[in-house]
């Protein structure tokens, strides 16, 4: 396998990397940090906890500088104990805190699943509304570093299956801050899933509060022939594919869900009715992915049922191999191919 530059890493950072220009612009990471900073300045109840978030500044540098500004009582470096990190956040939230915990990789959320599923999600309803858990757990997902099966997954679908949890999947540097702030202020446990390839994504630095309510999607590109419903790192991929499809005379509407619990069904349905064709693209593996939920919902609620299709990573154990992973995860070319199938029947 040859590459044009000889640098496998650079070439293979393809799919999303190609569409993300590294600039000294305002980035997704900057927006996250500013969101945390603003909430921490405004509300003394907001504290951060997680592994390597303080002195190290975070494995993906999101929390850099926050320990220096807020001190070790508000930016807490913890031992390596994922279940306890989430449990501590829950305990703090239950008695008046507003914790934002960081789990370094979504793949490690598995170690804390009882705390998410049986504890945080249940606390409010099970205990007759007496307690609530206003907590955020941030993690990052996805491929792009050849990091392998235990460091590259997208597990958002799991959390959507648990009533009581909120699931946010930001894709844009412009609105990730508003989503994070809204998540921190939400009285429910919020799973905030970033993506390792999006941290450098440039965007518009907004002014003021700019909260984005959870459960509102965004049309990233309006179109009339086909709706692509997607989220997270697949949004730039879908937009790139839309340019190619436009050259073929196929006008694509790209809907960035931003939130998988709750889902902005109004917008999804409206777009599906308008175009009559829906392609769901997600990086998470196909079976049991949230795409199935979207298509089932549309099949139940729309008459006539739109033409529908899903594109996802196949049901594989992702190899720790930069070359192989980009051959498995949806890229713009595969999105174009799927879209053509859908349009041409």
């Amino acid at each position, binding site marked *: 396998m040859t590459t044009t530059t000889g640098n496998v890493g650079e070439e293979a950072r393809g799919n999303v990397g190609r569409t993300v220009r590294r600039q000294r612009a305002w980035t997704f990471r900057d927006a996250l940090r500013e969101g945390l900073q603003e909430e921490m300045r405004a*509300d003394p109840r907001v504290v951060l906890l997680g592994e390597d978030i303080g002195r190290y500044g975070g494995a993906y540098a999101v929390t850099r500088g926050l320990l220096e500004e807020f001190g070790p009582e508000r930016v807490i470096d913890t031992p390596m104990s994922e*279940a306890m990190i989430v449990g501590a956040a*829950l*305990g703090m939230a239950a008695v008046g805190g507003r914790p934002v915990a960081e789990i370094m990789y979504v793949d490690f959320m598995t170690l804390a699943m009882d705390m998410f599923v049986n504890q945080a999600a249940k606390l409010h309803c099970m*205990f*007759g509304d*007496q307690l609530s858990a206003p907590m955020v757990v941030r993690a990052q997902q996805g491929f792009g570093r050849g990091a392998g099966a235990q460091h590259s997954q997208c597990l958002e679908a799991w959390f959507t299956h648990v009533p*009581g949890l909120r699931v946010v999947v930001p894709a844009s540097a412009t609105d990730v801050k508003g989503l994070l702030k809204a998540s921190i*202020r939400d*009285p429910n446990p919020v799973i905030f899933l970033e993506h390792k390839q999006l941290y450098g994504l440039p965007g518009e630095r907004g002014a003021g509060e700019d909260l984005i309510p959870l459960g509102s999607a965004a049309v990233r590109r309006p179109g009339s022939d086909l709706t692509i419903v997607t989220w997270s790192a697949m949004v730039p991929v879908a937009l790139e594919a839309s340019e190619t499809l436009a050259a073929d005379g196929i006008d694509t509407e790209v809907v960035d869900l931003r939130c998988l619990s709750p889902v902005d069904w109004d917008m999804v349905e409206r777009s599906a009715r308008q175009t009559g064709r829906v392609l769901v693209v997600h990086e998470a593996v196909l079976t049991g992915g949230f795409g199935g939920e979207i298509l089932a919902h549309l099949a139940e609620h729309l008459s006539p049922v739109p033409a529908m299709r899903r594109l996802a990573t196949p049901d594989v154990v992702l190899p720790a191999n930069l070359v192989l992973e980009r051959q498995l995860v949806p890229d713009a070319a595969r999105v174009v191919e799927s879209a053509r199938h859908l349009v041409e029947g």
Partner: protein
Amino acid sequence: MNKKGSTIEGPALARELFTTMVRIRRTEERILEFQLAGRLTTTMCHVSIGQEAVAAGVCRALEPGDYISSTHRGHGHYVARGGSLHALVAELLGRQDGACMGRGGSMHLVDARIGHLGSNAIVGGHVPIATGAAMWSRLSGDGKVSVAFFGDGAITEGIFHEAANFAAVFRLPVVFVMENNQYAMSMPWSRAVIEYGAATRAASYGMPGVDVDGQDPLAVHAVAREAVERARSAGGPTFIGAQTYRFYGHSRADASPYRDPEEETIWRERDPLSLMQHRLEDEGIMTSAQLEEVEAAVHQELDEAVRSAEQSPPASLEAVLRDVYAAAKGSDR
């Protein structure tokens, strides 16, 4: 007689602890009656008969703002902490006035007003929550102490290890109270762990640990008070291993065939209520007439709680559908 002489606190404390244990015992017996009569809206009900002294002794060592969290076998903790009998009975009967509006059943009790952060049906699941509450107390400086009650089964769950280490590292105001009733369902303690000693086990985390006779509420109280004071004065967590016994099986369905009948007999002779009653009489702290008064008062309290619980409407389905997510409140921004 106490050679050192009884302090003023001594007799009063003993009376209080005895009354709490009677309240727990009679409530549990009434709950068992309801269960036998098929009146509970849950089939999972675990009574703490035989273990009353631990709940009574520990809870008596707390201040009003302190937190407790508890287990599936948590009626005793709830009552000892001052939970409402009306809310407890209503909960088991599936009524709206129940502690959890009829949604929690026996295993999920709560009372935020008395610092009860919830009883949990995942063994050990509440221990990190109690520890997190203690962390908030440390960070906010509110001076509260958090108690986690759990059984011998919990310490073999990984989450206990994470919580104990975390509490010690951050020097949190939490007291870990193991109610060791010798069995995790059918698994004997003697087969589940190698290290029995609380002090040794706790030392591995860097915190003090102490074993105590869980059938003696005064001994439990003394140990708990020391642990609570340590926590409140920024001395960090303590692990208490209280040895006790379940007089019934794990649950109603369990006739405990895995227990040696001789062992059961020996432990039943150490009924914490009987032991305390004899002590109160022998030391002249209470007469038999006074003891009967306690029973009568509890009986009346319980009757009234049952009467009022029975008047509460059934749990609301609409509310269950509505309350999956919390709504924003005034304290939110």
